[in-house]
C-alpha cells in the first residue's frame, strides 16, 4: 500500500468531495412514504457515481457545470407572445405544471378510459410505480453513469405516474408553464403500459430556466408508447432530460424531441429492447443559433432477437451554435436478426457552427444488420440554384431545403396532426431566423 494516493484516486476523492459539497446544499423534498426509500437510494447513487465534470468521456462535448451549479433566479421570465398554442384542435388530456408544480385548476381531471394517472407528489402509499420509480434509472447507470438522472430521482418535486391498461385514444398532454417563482425545476414521470396498451404522451412548454426531467417507461408486451416532446423559444433554457424505456416483446417505443432555442440542452435516451421483435425509434430535430448548445446522447441496447431500432437526429445550426450527437447501438449476444439504423446530421448555416458526433456500434451477435452515418454540411448550392432558377426566391428556397433536411426526423412522428404542428413550428422558427 502506497501512502501517496494515485492521481486517479486523488481525482476520485476530489470529485467525491465536490459532489458531497453540492449535495449538502440540497434537501430531499417531502414525498409520499412509498417514495422515500427510492429517493434515498437515488441520493446514495449520486454520491457513489459522483456528479459529472468536463473530464468525463461522456461529457467531453458538453460541459455539465451549468446543469449542476445552483441556479440563479432570472430577473425576467422570457415571455412568448407571438406563438400560437401547440396542438390546437387535437383532442387530448391536458395536465398542466406551473413552475414544475402540478396545477389541478389548469388541468383536466386525471382520468381517462384505460388510464390511471396520479400526481407524483401526492400519490397514495401503495402504488404500482413503487417497482419502477428509480429502477430503470438505476439500471441505466451502466455501462455509462448518468448521475444527473439519479439526482433527478432523488430530488424530483413533481411529475405524473401514468398507467395505461388499454388503447388510450386521447393523447396525454403534459403542458409546462412558467410563472417565474422557481428557476430550477425537477420533474420525474413514470409511465407503465400494460400488455397491448397504447399511449401517446406529449410534452411541451417552458419548464424553467433550468430543468431536469426524467421519464421512466415500461412498455409491456405488444404495447406502444409514442412520446413527443417540444422545447422551444425560452431562450435562457438549460435542460437535462432522460428517457429510460424498457421495451418488451413485440412492443414499440417511439420518442421524438423538437428543440428550438435555449442555451444548453442534454437529452439522453436509453432504451432496452428486452423482448423479441420489439421496436424503438428515437428521433429529434434541433434548431438553434448563437449560444445554443444541443446534445443528444442516445443508447439503444438490443438484448433480444428480431428487434428493430432507428435513431434519426437532425440539427440546424446558425451563428456559432453547437450540436452534439453521441449515439450508440449495442447488440448483445442473444440479439440475432437485429436491424439497427442510426443517422445524425447537422446543417451548418455558417462557418462558425460546430457539429460534434460520436456514433458507435458495439455488436456481439453475428447475424445483424446495422448501419450508421453522421454528416454535417451546408445547404447544397446546386439544390439552391435549381429552386431559384425555377423562380423560388432565395429565402423560400432555403426554407424548403431546410425543411427537406429535417424531413426524415419528422417522418418518425406517426400522428400526422402532431407532425404537422411540428412542421408549423419549424417553419415559423426558420422564418424568424432567416436573415
Amino acid at each position, binding site marked *: 500500500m502506497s501512502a501517496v494516493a494515485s492521481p486517479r484516486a486523488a481525482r476520485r476523492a476530489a470529485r467525491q468531495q465536490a459532489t458531497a459539497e453540492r449535495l449538502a446544499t440540497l434537501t430531499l423534498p417531502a414525498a409520499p412514504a412509498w417514495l422515500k426509500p427510492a429517493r434515498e437510494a437515488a441520493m446514495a447513487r449520486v454520491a457513489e457515481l459522483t456528479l459529472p465534470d468536463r473530464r468525463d468521456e461522456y461529457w467531453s462535448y458538453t460541459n455539465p457545470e451549468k446543469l449542476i451549479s445552483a441556479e440563479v433566479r432570472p430577473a425576467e421570465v422570457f415571455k412568448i407572445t407571438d406563438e400560437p398554442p401547440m396542438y390546437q384542435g387535437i383532442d387530448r388530456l391536458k395536465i398542466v405544471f406551473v413552475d414544475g408544480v402540478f396545477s389541478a385548476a389548469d388541468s383536466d381531471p386525471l382520468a381517462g378510459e384505460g388510464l390511471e394517472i396520479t400526481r407524483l407528489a401526492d400519490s397514495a402509499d401503495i402504488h404500482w410505480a413503487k417497482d419502477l420509480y428509480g429502477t430503470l434509472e438505476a439500471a441505466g447507470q451502466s455501462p455509462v453513469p448518468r448521475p444527473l438522472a439519479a439526482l433527478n430521482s432523488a430530488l424530483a418535486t413533481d411529475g405524473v405516474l401514468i398507467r395505461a391498461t388499454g388503447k388510450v385514444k386521447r393523447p396525454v398532454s403534459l403542458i409546462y408553464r412558467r410563472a417565474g417563482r422557481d428557476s430550477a425545476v425537477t420533474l420525474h414521470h413514470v409511465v407503465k403500459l400494460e400488455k397491448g396498451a397504447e399511449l401517446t404522451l406529449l410534452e411541451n412548454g417552458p419548464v424553467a430556466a433550468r430543468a431536469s426531467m426524467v421519464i421512466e417507461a415500461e412498455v409491456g408486451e405488444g404495447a406502444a408508447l409514442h412520446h413527443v416532446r417540444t422545447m422551444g423559444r425560452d431562450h435562457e433554457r438549460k435542460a437535462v432530460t432522460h428517457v429510460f424505456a424498457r421495451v418488451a416483446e413485440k412492443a414499440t417505443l417511439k420518442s421524438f424531441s423538437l428543440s428550438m432555442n435555449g442555451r444548453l440542452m442534454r437529452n439522453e435516451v436509453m432504451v432496452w429492447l428486452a423482448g423479441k421483435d420489439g421496436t424503438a425509434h428515437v428521433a429529434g430535430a434541433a434548431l438553434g443559433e448563437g449560444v445554443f448548445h444541443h446534445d443528444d446522447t442516445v443508447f439503444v441496447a438490443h438484448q433480444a432477437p428480431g428487434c428493430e431500432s432507428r435513431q434519426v437526429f437532425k440539427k440546424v445550426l446558425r451563428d456559432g451554435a453547437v450540436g452534439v450527437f453521441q449515439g450508440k447501438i449495442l447488440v448483445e449476444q442473444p440479439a440475432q436478426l437485429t436491424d439497427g439504423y442510426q443517422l445524425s446530421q447537422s446543417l451548418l448555416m455558417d462557418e462558425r457552427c460546430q457539429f460534434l458526433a460520436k456514433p458507435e456500434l458495439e455488436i456481439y451477435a453475428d447475424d445483424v444488420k446495422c448501419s450508421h452515418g453522421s454528416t454535417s454540411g451546408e445547404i*447544397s*448550392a*446546386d*439544390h439552391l*440554384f*435549381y*429552386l*431559384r*432558377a*425555377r*423562380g*423560388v*426566391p*432565395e429565402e*423560400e*428556397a432555403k426554407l*424548403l*431545403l431546410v*425543411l*427537406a*433536411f*429535417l*424531413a*426524415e426526423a419528422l417522418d418518425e412522428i406517426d400522428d400526422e396532426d402532431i407532425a404537422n404542428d411540428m412542421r408549423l413550428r419549424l417553419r415559423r422558427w426558420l422564418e424568424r431566423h432567416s436573415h
Partner: protein
Amino acid sequence: MLEINNLHVKLQDEDKAILKGLSLSVEAGSVHAIMGPNGSGKSTLSYVLAGRDGYEVTDGTATLDGESLLDMEPEERAAHGLFLAFQYPVEIPGVGNMTFLRTAVNAQRKARGEAELSSGEFLKVIRAKAKDLKIDAEMLKRPVNVGFSGGEKKRNEILQMAMLEPRMCILDETDSGLDVDAMKLVAEGVNALRSEGRAFLVITHYQRLLDHIKPDVVHIMANGRIVKTGGPELALEVEENGYADILAEVQA
C-alpha cells in the same frame, strides 16, 4: 427577345476564360439550335444566362426583352420568363415534386403581380400536363427527381417548363440519354409550347432532336464563340461530316 452581345465569361475562382465574345440574337416565335463539340461552353452559356454562381462576366451584355439579365437574381430571371432545362437535373431529397412546382409557379405569379393558383387549380393543370408527357401521378408525389431515370428527369424538366410557361426557353442537351420514344415525347412537349410570343434555344449534339423540333436557325459554337450560323441544313452538315470541316473552314 434574347440578345447576347460580345459575352465574355471566365470562371470565378480560376483564370480560365470560357465564353470569348459570344453574340447571339433570338427573336420571339423562333427556335434556335446551338450545336458544338463538348467543352465549347454551351452549358456555361446556359448557366450564365440563368444566373448560376461561379462565373464572372468580364465583358458583354445579355438582355431579355431589353432588360439586362446579368443584373438579376436567378429567381428574377425566371419571373421575367427565362427557363433553363438543365443538362443534369439535380435530385432534391425531401422536397416533393408537387410542393416544389406549386411553390415555383406561385412565386413567379406573385413576382409578376398575378393571383396565385389554388391547390385545386394547380392540381388540375399539372395532372393534364403530366399526362401528356406520360408522367404518372406517383412520380409527382416523389421528391424532386429522386429515383427518376435519366429520361424521367428530362421529361420532368419539360413538365416544369409547361407549368411555368416561360417566354424564353433554353434546353441544354435535353435529348441526351433519351430513347427514341422519350425523345418524341419531349419534342411534342416543346412543340406544343411553340407560339409567337415564345422562343427556344435548343442546345444539342444531335440532328435527331432537330428532326422533331424544327429549328429556324442553327448556330455552331466552338471555343466559347458562335463560329457559324445558318439554316436547318447546317445541322444536317454536322450530322454527316462532324464539326471538323466546319471548324477548319472557319479557321481558314
